């Protein structure tokens, strides 16, 4: 798997597109600010949401058991999956039992995490993603590049070409209204024919056994209310104690995500329609490991709003696919190493540590601190790349030897003046590739200080 920096280099090769990506996401961030500023209690909401999640994580077993008990009483089937393989087998067994071959799926990052679509396709089940952005990337055989705006890496020309190829829309018609209407016709057929509907879960309420799903398109509801079977997949961290907590989280979620006051639909599923089935799968997939690690456990508070993506200077200029993981951006970069340190060792380094992510996070996760902590862990455990190891070791050695440091400074200044090609070499000096070297100063700071300020 290529590293983030490598993938990002390919992304920024198209400067116009990179600028568009950057500006569009910044526009979403600006909408978030505008929405937040309309509520005087915004900071209190963030603080409260963070505290509710903290309390829930500290009592997670109690709340999961309470949720299970209520949901069972409501006539909902509950399944527990320790890892993604178990999750996928449960889904397949449920579909197989009812002879289902066609399913529709609304947005669920958890099923992406489990690679469910591919698994079901291999079993001969047709899976149709019904969120428009997810459908676009599914037709293109790509992964979503953003958890809220899955096709944000694409231009309307790309969507037009994809729809022309798969949905036989007019060639070259790039009108967003036209394309959306065509997708509506296409997906309505899938809704109508679907035998089972898969959804994610935004919140699971322990007090009532309800699950809440938020969409703007209405796709989750169209799928669930049409099909005989509803299968909802959730991570163990999705539970919240009480229905009144929804007031706190729903006020934060859409405002943080897109700047809307609330999503068009906030659907509360308590029990299935008569003669139908509702299943909830509760998945761990290493979340308990994360919970056991005090440095990283509060990343489990995440409500998947993607505010940290939209504000991140690195995400905006490198695109979601550069992160080679289901959840990109700053939060993805602290979640991914927990799943696989080796494969995701580059991600905590894909950050400037500016802290903007932590400042917009609606549940106050200290994202940039965790990025920095992951760097320590990954380097210590030997997952750093060779250039990083050598340069960090070298720097450490030089910085801990003052005389050597002074000598190295003198040499470097001399080299920059007289042999600039040694340093201005894009092949050997990785750091120089995207940067310009400053003009070499005539003296070091120490020399300047001694001359001007020492008595």
């Amino acid at each position, binding site marked *: 798997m290529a590293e983030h920096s490598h993938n990002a280099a390919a992304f920024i090769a198209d400067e116009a597109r990179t600028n568009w990506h950057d500006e569009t996401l910044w526009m979403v961030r600006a909408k978030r600010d505008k929405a937040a500023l309309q509520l005087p209690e915004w900071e209190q909401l963030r603080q409260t949401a963070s505290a509710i999640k903290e309390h829930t994580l500290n009592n997670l077993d109690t709340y999961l058991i309470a949720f299970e008990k209520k949901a069972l009483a409501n006539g909902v089937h509950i399944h527990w999956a320790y890892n993604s393989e178990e999750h996928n087998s449960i889904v397949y067994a449920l579909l197989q039992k009812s002879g289902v071959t066609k399913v529709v799926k609304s947005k669920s990052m958890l099923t992406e995490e489990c690679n469910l679509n591919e698994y079901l396709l291999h079993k001969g089940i047709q899976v149709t993603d019904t969120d428009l952005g997810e459908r*676009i990337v599914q037709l293109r055989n790509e992964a979503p590049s953003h958890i809220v705006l*899955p096709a944000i890496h694409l231009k309307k020309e790309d969507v037009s070409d994809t729809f022309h190829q798969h949905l036989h829309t007019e060639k070259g018609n790039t009108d967003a209204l036209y394309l959306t209407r065509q997708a509506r016709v296409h997906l309505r057929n899938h809704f109508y024919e679907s035998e089972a509907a898969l959804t994610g879960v935004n919140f699971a309420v322990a007090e009532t056994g309800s699950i809440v799903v938020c969409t703007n398109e209405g796709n989750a509801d169209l799928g669930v209310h049409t099909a005989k079977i509803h299968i909802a997949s959730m991570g163990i961290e999705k539970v919240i104690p009480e229905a009144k907590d929804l007031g706190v989280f729903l006020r934060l979620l859409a405002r943080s995500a897109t700047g809307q006051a609330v999503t068009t639909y906030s659907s509360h599923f308590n029990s299935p329609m008569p003669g139908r089935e509702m299943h909830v799968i509760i998945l761990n997939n290493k979340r308990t490991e994360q919970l056991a690690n005090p440095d990283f456990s509060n990343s489990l508070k995440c409500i998947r709003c993607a505010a940290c993506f939209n504000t991140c200077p690195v995400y905006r200029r490198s695109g979601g696919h550069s992160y080679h993981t289901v959840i990109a951006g700053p939060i993805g970069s602290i979640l991914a190493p927990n799943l696989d340190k080796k494969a995701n060792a580059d991600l905590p380094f894909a950050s400037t540590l500016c802290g903007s992510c932590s400042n917009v996070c609606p549940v106050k996760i200290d994202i940039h601190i965790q990025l920095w902590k992951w760097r320590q862990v990954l380097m210590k455990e030997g997952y750093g790349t060779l250039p990083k190891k050598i340069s960090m070791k070298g720097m450490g050695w030089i910085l801990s030897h003052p005389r050597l440091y002074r000598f190295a400074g003198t040499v470097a200044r001399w080299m920059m003046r007289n042999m600039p090609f040694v340093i201005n070499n894009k092949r050997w000096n990785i750091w120089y590739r995207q940067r310009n070297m400053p003009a070499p100063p005539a003296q070091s700071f120490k020399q300047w200080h001694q001359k001007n300020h020492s008595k």
Partner: protein
Amino acid sequence: MNMARDKILDEIKTATSSNRQAFTYHISGISYADKTRTFIQGVEANGGSVFQTKDKTAIENFIHAERDAGKNIQYITSGQKLDCALETLYHIDTAVITGGIAVAENGAVWVSEKDMGHRLLPFTCKQLVLIVEEKNIVHNLHEAYAAINITDTNYGVFIAGPSKTADIEQSLVIGAHGPLNHFVFIINL
């Protein structure tokens, strides 16, 4: 799969044994000088339209006009169950449904299964018309959840406007998979 359940719960217990005290909080959300006006602005910002009326005649006139225009219209009166084929549900032009609590801060209206005839109706219709009593408008979601018992129904949904998407280059399109139009009648009896 009970093995998975036990293992997960055991691992959580080991990870979290330190801090288990009870937790309470209170937030008083924003309130507005004129919550009806704010609610109307909220619905409009979401892409819907609002009509205010003193009595139900305006709604009846609207329904007659829709019927005269040859529209396939479903008006759900209190507690009515809509028992019809999927095919029919997918071809309804206008659905008129009575909502419960309405939220000024975001334009959302609570719609309970008991009042929607069939769970699909608010989603398959081309045009959704919600009837809201002005006295049911609250300032914010905290007040809404205090007023609603979500377990009074098997399914309930806050609907804030027409279905929409901006998944193609962030261009907002009103009318994704659900209704293309969204109207709210506010009745002030």
